């Protein structure tokens, strides 16, 4: 079974609740396992927030698109926007092993999204940022210490995740 959800949102953080609600409803109606759905909703929330915050600087007049599709046990999320070039995968990973005193505030959103998804790719094409996230059911995030999720790097400028 293949299902699709397409949304166009204003580049305002006020739109995030609407996005989250739509995506949650979509996953529920497609019978996605709850935990997988929550992981996806969180990743979408985090990435969309980054697009709005860093790509546009919260410009309500601008819009971006979110396309979610389910194909069997794999979910694909595309976030497409026309903001300035911004690759969220280039945001440095936070040091998740540092102690409370040393832990900086911030930097977690992209890290969470990347670890919760099976694969995350970014491409800049035709003047747009295109972020694609894939999640396969049964593919849960590996433990925090050490392991990195398996990610791909394309030959045509797409970027996957980072290895230490």
């Amino acid at each position, binding site marked *: 079974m293949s299902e699709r959800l397409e949304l166009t949102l204003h580049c305002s*953080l006020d739109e*995030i*609740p609407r996005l*989250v609600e739509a995506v949650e409803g979509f996953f529920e109606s497609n019978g996605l396992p*709850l*935990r997988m759905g*929550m*992981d996806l*909703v*969180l990743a979408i*929330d*985090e990435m969309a*927030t980054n697009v709005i915050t860093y790509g546009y600087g919260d410009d309500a007049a601008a819009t971006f698109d979110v396309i979610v599709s389910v194909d069997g046990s794999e979910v694909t999320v595309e976030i497409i926007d026309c903001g300035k070039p911004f690759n969220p995968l280039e945001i440095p990973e*936070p*040091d*998740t*092993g*540092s*102690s*409370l*005193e040393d*832990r900086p*505030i*911030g930097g*977690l*959103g992209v*890290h*969470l999204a990347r*670890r*919760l998804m099976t694969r995350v790719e970014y491409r800049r094409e035709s003047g747009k940022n295109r972020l694609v996230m894939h999640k396969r059911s049964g593919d*849960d*995030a590996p*433990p*925090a210490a050490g392991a990195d999720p398996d990610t791909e790097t394309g030959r045509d400028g797409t970027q996957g995740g980072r290895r230490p």
Partner: protein
Amino acid sequence: MEVTERRDGEVTVLELVGKLDSNTAKGFEERLMGLIDKGNSRLVLDFGRLDYISSAGLRVLLMAAKRLKAASGRMALCGMSEHIREVFEISGFSSIFAIHGTQQESVAAV
């Protein structure tokens, strides 16, 4: 997000209901920091009815933990769903927060 507050002896217990995300994080930050600044140094956050926490929410928890530590206070978290537990693991927060299964255990720990 709704937050119910009650006292269990010397401990302030906050029960979070709904979502702690970029929308609700600011309000929760004000509430939590306000409690800490007023001298509530033993806190338990019950996540039993929390559906969702995003990095905005984690940020608030981190700020509160730092401020509590400066005030020689303690905080514990309990009742996490599997998904929220996973988020804490991935972010490394599970190693800087005291996490328990039940509210009772958390109250006893702080």
